[in-house]
């Protein structure tokens, strides 16, 4: 007995790009929300996300340094 392969992202079984994106793990609600914004608002939001990522990376670096110090 053979196990049928799961449909791939490129599978013709999935008919629309939105369906393929959902199957790929993309949160479509974020895209719908972004499309309601102006291009400037989208870039402002992207800037806020980048700033958060950079701040988080800096926090992780400090935390790792402290962990290494206390080990």
């Amino acid at each position, binding site marked *: 007995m053979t196990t049928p392969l799961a449909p791939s992202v490129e599978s013709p079984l999935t008919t629309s790009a939105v369906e*393929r994106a959902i199957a790929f793990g993309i949160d479509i609600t974020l895209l719908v929300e972004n499309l309601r914004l102006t291009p400037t608002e989208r*870039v402002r939001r992207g800037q806020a996300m*980048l700033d958060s990522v950079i701040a988080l990376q800096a926090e992780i670096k400090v935390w790792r340094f402290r962990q290494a110090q206390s080990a």
Partner: protein
Amino acid sequence: MSVTNFQRLLALFAESNADCVIIGGLAAMVHGSAYVTYDVDVCYNRAPTNVEKICQALATVHPKLRGAPADIPFRLDPPTMLAGLNFTLDTDIGALDLLGEVSPFGEFSQVVQHAEEAELFGYQVRVLSLEALIEAKRAAGRQKDLLVIPELEALLELRKHPPE
């Protein structure tokens, strides 16, 4: 390395009247992508007068080769830009990639034919169209480029057929 300030980098190019097209992750963001991008990628016109404008504008933010040892001498001037093609830079206001060509389109004169005008922070700027961005990501073929294609294709579909 400075955190990239999209508004300031866009303003720098717009105020210099340099001929360029926003491409890459920032173009995707302008079209509605939810992915985070760390830099600004532009395809620039390599006409000497335009290269001069870009060099003058960027001189104010001290461009350096990104990732290169600090002791390697580098000055972004027109002869340097015209001798090269693509430059991966770090500036006082963030990471900037200057590309002389974009696959599969070619140089600026071809890329600009696939650009749209967008208003960003009060400036009219050229941004690679969503359709062209998908083609460029596919042509680049790297894993990180291929991963964003499903999202870009979904954006294209949502733009054509907005949900009710």
